[in-house]
């Protein structure tokens, strides 16, 4: 079952098309990573999900309700953290947290105190004196101390230190264990790798890939380093071989992961002395998609 469904979402700012037919869903109980280069349309999508922007075209449903017309109902069960947290300079952090929690309708005092302690925030300070990270903590505490079913987080950790980043990850996992769903947009790949069940990659206003990390990995290349007794014949003629290079340690090349089986069979005929393989890193995965070359692989897993 999906808590969030986006179908053919299109959003124009004047003549500029920011979202050009976005499709994805977030299933109940999963953490969905939403990634893509700067200006790809992540924040725009999220603002449409929140009913802050009105879509030109397409259907956006959260909890089965329309994101625009039923915004208030939806928001009673949803918590949002923006990346750029702009607060009222003359209110204290504690006041803002209370206000936010109250406006959603929930009220969980003990959770609030616990999170304030965990995130190490001084709630008696005026927002004008907070650092970027501290402002983000205010938004995070307000979000996680409210009892929501869906968390929408737009680069929530861009200002947090590594220690706080860890606290954040605990909060997300805790929410997930309670069966909550999370939409997490982030540029921090290690965070996405650790937290997300599935990811969607958006570029130039279109989702170019969705799937579990494992599924996506199959779409990229594995690094191979081999030394064989005899030189490997006609390696370059095989499908899915790239960037072959003679090095001192042996022959280095990259293989499209789905061709791996055939290639290894082929090499093994020449007497393997040494074989090292490195799985594609998340970085490779994203690079291949972020760069324009990525188009070559588009359309694999859906």
């Amino acid at each position, binding site marked *: 079952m999906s808590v969030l469904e986006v179908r053919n979402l299109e959003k124009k700012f004047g003549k500029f098309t920011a979202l050009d037919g976005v499709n994805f869903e977030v299933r109940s109980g999963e953490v969905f990573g939403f990634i893509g280069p700067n200006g790809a349309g992540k924040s725009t999508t999220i603002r449409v999900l929140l009913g802050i922007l009105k879509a030109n075209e397409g259907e956006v449903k959260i909890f089965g309700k329309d994101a625009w017309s039923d915004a208030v109902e939806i928001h009673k069960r*949803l918590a949002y953290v923006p990346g750029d947290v*702009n607060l009222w300079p003359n209110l204290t952090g*504690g*006041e803002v947290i209370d206000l936010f929690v109250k406006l959603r309708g929930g009220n969980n005092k003990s959770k609030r105190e616990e999170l304030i302690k965990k995130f190490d925030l001084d709630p008696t300070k005026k927002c004008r004196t907070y650092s970027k990270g501290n402002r983000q903590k205010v938004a995070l505490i307000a979000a996680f101390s409210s009892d929501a079913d869906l968390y929408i987080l737009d680069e929530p950790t861009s200002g947090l230190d590594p220690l706080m980043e860890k606290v954040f990850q605990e909060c997300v996992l805790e929410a997930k264990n309670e069966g909550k769903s999370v939409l997490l947009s982030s540029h921090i790949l290690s965070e996405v790798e650790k937290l997300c069940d599935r990811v969607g990659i958006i570029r130039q206003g279109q989702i170019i890939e969705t799937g579990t990390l494992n599924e996506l990995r199959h779409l990229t290349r594995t690094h191979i380093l081999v030394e064989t007794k005899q030189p490997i014949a006609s390696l370059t003629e095989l499908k899915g071989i790239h960037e072959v290079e003679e090095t001192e340690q042996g022959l280095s090349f990259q293989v499209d992961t789905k061709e791996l089986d055939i290639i290894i069979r082929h090499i093994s005929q020449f007497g393997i002395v040494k074989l090292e393989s490195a799985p594609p890193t998340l970085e490779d995965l994203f690079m291949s998609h972020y760069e324009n070359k990525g188009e070559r692989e588009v359309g694999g897993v859906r």
Partner: protein
Amino acid sequence: MGQNAFTNTGKLTRLIFRLDRIRIPLWIIGLAIFTFIVPPTFDGLYPSQQDRDAITSTLANPAMTAMLGPGDLENYTIGAMTAHEMLLMTAVITGLMAILLVTKHTRADEEDGRIEMIRSLPSGRLSYLNATLAVTSGAFLLLTLVIGFGLFGFGIESMDLEGSLLYGAALGGTGLVFAGVTAVFAQLSESSRGTIGWSVAILLGAYLFRAITDLSNEALSWLSPLGWVTKAEVYSSNNWGPIVLMLAVAILLFVIANYLNSIRDLEQGFIASRPGKRNASRLLQSPIGLAFRLQRTGFISWAIGMYVLGASYGSIFGDLESFFEGNEMYQQMLQLSEGASLVEQFIPTLMVVISLIATIPPIMAINKLRGEEKKGRLDHLLGRAVSRSRLLGSYLILSVVNGFVMLSLSAIGLWSAGNAVVENGMDFGMLFGAAFVYYPAMLVMIGLAAFLNGFLPKQTSLVWIYILYSFFVLYLGNMMQFPNWVGQLSPFGHVPQVPIEDATFMPLFILSVIAVGLMILSFIGFRKRDIAN
């Protein structure tokens, strides 16, 4: 520090000049038009000295002196008339221009983090402030020349080159003084709202102080920068002394602002931030509570200001009364409208000014919604269980209540001071009624602001132009003998002149209907548009 503190001031001056290349010319053109339409009109309406002398009798009373300042009524040429009727009010608007321009490039830029970027570049610590002051000073020099040569250019006999330049210089000088005042408050206050608030308070304070001292003890008016404007005696004795004084004070204020800027940290004021509440009070925990909290300080200051304004005008009723008692001709002239006392004749004239000023805070209250949107803070509310209607409704209610309070307080101020000084006391109900006939017109302005917010969010400031227009046509209406429709383009032009006239039902009802209609429409627009920052 030394020299380094001013590195790259020149480049930054050019940058600010570029940023303001539309705003500054617009202000100057606006002020120039405001000024230039007057002398030819007076020339047409009051061509002979007799015509003009006739009208001085209606001007030579304390109420007019409080509003316009003293004028050269003995020798009321077209020039003296223009200076008397227009100069002080134009100077107040010029002061406002200085406040807005300087705040924009001092506290507002600092608050939004732009100065941080500038400081990270090889520019001096004081460069941006001085670049701002340089551009502003340039703007006022230009204003002086445009007005000076422009007025001279009409070729009206009584308006010689010296007087015209002095007229311009009185405006430019006032601008410089208030640029200095604002630059100082930009250092003291921690927010751009605070900077504007304090500076406007000084501006209004200077106006009121001058009004009172012009009546009681003219020498004391030298303490108010706006007193200097009339002391220049433009087109009569052409006294340049006040202009020199303005320049000296402006330079002193610039130096103080520089000093304060050099000893404080970026993004700080001089009042250290104390720890605040750990939890939100019950009041704060709703959109309307938040909206009120954000405007509380401004609301209280305006409330005090409106009371003081009312009381200042009220305090001249006594002078008015004794003035009339000794003036038979006046009594005969004013016998025309029966039933109202002599003092009451002046109430509508005062009320239109008071009610237009009282319209400013409620418009600020409703436009705050757009301000919050631009800062991206509405997302926090709309991203939670707050509907757009509730949000707009909260700001609208606050604005409507705000207007009610402001109008009430000015009426109470007027009454409390007036009642004390007028021999037989004043009727509170009458004064209150005279104030509240303007409420529907005020609601139309609020409705218009809300409407713009719903349908043309980028144009919300248009409502200010409309208010300025209303002020302009109603303030000058009698003098300039505009055709009726000019005044009636403003909602304030339809308000019956209580207590001279009866409070007729129809115009007030129609105004209210228009106001409500605009408000309803605003909800429709606000519900279906994008929230953007």
